[in-house]
């Protein structure tokens, strides 16, 4: 942290409109209310064990306009989404929602975390993150649980419609041997 605090910021590289871009995104609306008290960082379970993630620092970077760094550094993906900060923020900034908004912008700018690419393909294929086949249904049956059917057609259609799964990706996985 102390080392990072000494990093120089090149004012020419700042994007003063970034905070407004974030404020336009669903979940990012209230960012400009932040007065940098640090309640978020003090409440953050990730911050406690990993100093690469610091919500106050990220918000400050957005307000300064460090767009490129915020969107390309993988720290935006480190928020665990626990909402501890959001409940405690004295300014009512919805910090959990804001982190989601930053990720959404990062994805649009081409910086998706690879773990999510795989998850979306799986959702398009199974409709769930965990596939349920004969093996799982047999195990469920032994506990007296009803079998579950796997039909991803509607999920797949909605993921495609909302633009996060491309038909090409779907075709590719259809070709994969079962």
């Amino acid at each position: 942290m102390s080392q990072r605090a000494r990093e120089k910021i090149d004012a020419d590289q700042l994007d003063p409109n970034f905070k407004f871009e974030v404020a336009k995104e669903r979940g990012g609306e209230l960012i400009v209310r932040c007065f940098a008290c640090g309640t978020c960082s003090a409440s953050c379970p990730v911050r406690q064990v990993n100093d690469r993630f610091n919500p106050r620092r990220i918000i400050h970077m957005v307000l300064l306009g460090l767009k490129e760094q915020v969107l390309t550094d993988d720290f935006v993906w480190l928020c665990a989404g626990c909402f501890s900060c959001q409940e405690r923020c004295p300014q009512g900034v919805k910090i959990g929602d804001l982190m989601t908004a930053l990720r959404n912008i990062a994805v649009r700018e081409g910086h998706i975390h690879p773990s999510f690419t795989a998850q979306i393909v799986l959702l398009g294929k199974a409709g769930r993150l965990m596939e349920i086949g004969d093996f799982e249904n047999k195990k469920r049956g032994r506990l007296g649980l009803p079998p579950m059917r796997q039909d991803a057609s509607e999920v797949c259609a909605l993921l495609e419609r909302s633009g996060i799964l491309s038909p090409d990706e779907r075709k590719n996985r259809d070709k994969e041997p079962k």
Partner: protein
Amino acid sequence: MKASEQKALSYALFLGCTVPVRGMNYEASARLVAERLRIRLVDIEAFSCCGFPVQSVKKYSALLLAARNLSLAEQKDLDICVLCSACGVSLSEANHAFRQNPDLLSQINSDLQAVGRHYSGKTKVKHFVRLLYEDVGLKRLKEYIHQPLSGLVVAPFYGCHYLKPAEVHDHFEDPENPTSLEELIEITGAQALYHANRLSCCGGGILGIDEATAQKIAKSTLDAAKAVGADALVLQCGTCDVMLELSQRKIGKIFEVEYNLPVVYYPQLLGLAMGIPQEELGFALNRVGSQEFLHRVNSLVAR
């Protein structure tokens, strides 16, 4: 009055992704407890992922998947009961967003139309544990306790999304000072121990992003529960279980700590106190110290 009571105790059971595959003990015990309490849980085959995993990629897509699930329950005139807290927050958040912004719901419906569905915004969403607390109530639950677990001491673990964000859960409980889980534990006869991590995050949210960080977060809770001498950790979310039970040995190995801390789902604990046979409650699927835990329960019940 009678009809509304009937409706209040019928729910569509929303299982999500993790519970039906990795939390079959949770599902089985919840179904059995519900059956005894005459809560009708209806299975809807077409339910899918709640949408939670895609919100980081595109919030709108998550809302769309949530709305599809909500519409399926609405079609059957049922509210939704969730077992996984993340499913709960994802579906409730969609409802909250649609209430605040009717235009958003119209846009969602124009996309849902493509798969022949429509959501008008009626489906309510409740976590199974909250349902026990609010719809059944402690007073009525007590009547079902036939084998009080007096002498058992357990560490409650709320996880995040059962309570937070409070706004999307209608502020049903103060997220900084909740009591429902402790109260529900105490009616079983067991004692709920206070520990520093009862409201902590399990770390599961970033397991796929940074496993080492997620493990450190989970370790903190395992340490806290161990320090107060709990017979078990009691929780109510499939993701919390992945971190605190299914990853427990791995975390112990990394940090050279032997936890051997049994982890049970709340409906399993309640089921034991209700006198439901142990084998039916799915304890064979509890991975850490379930034998010892059941021995302890048996010795207390036999006294």
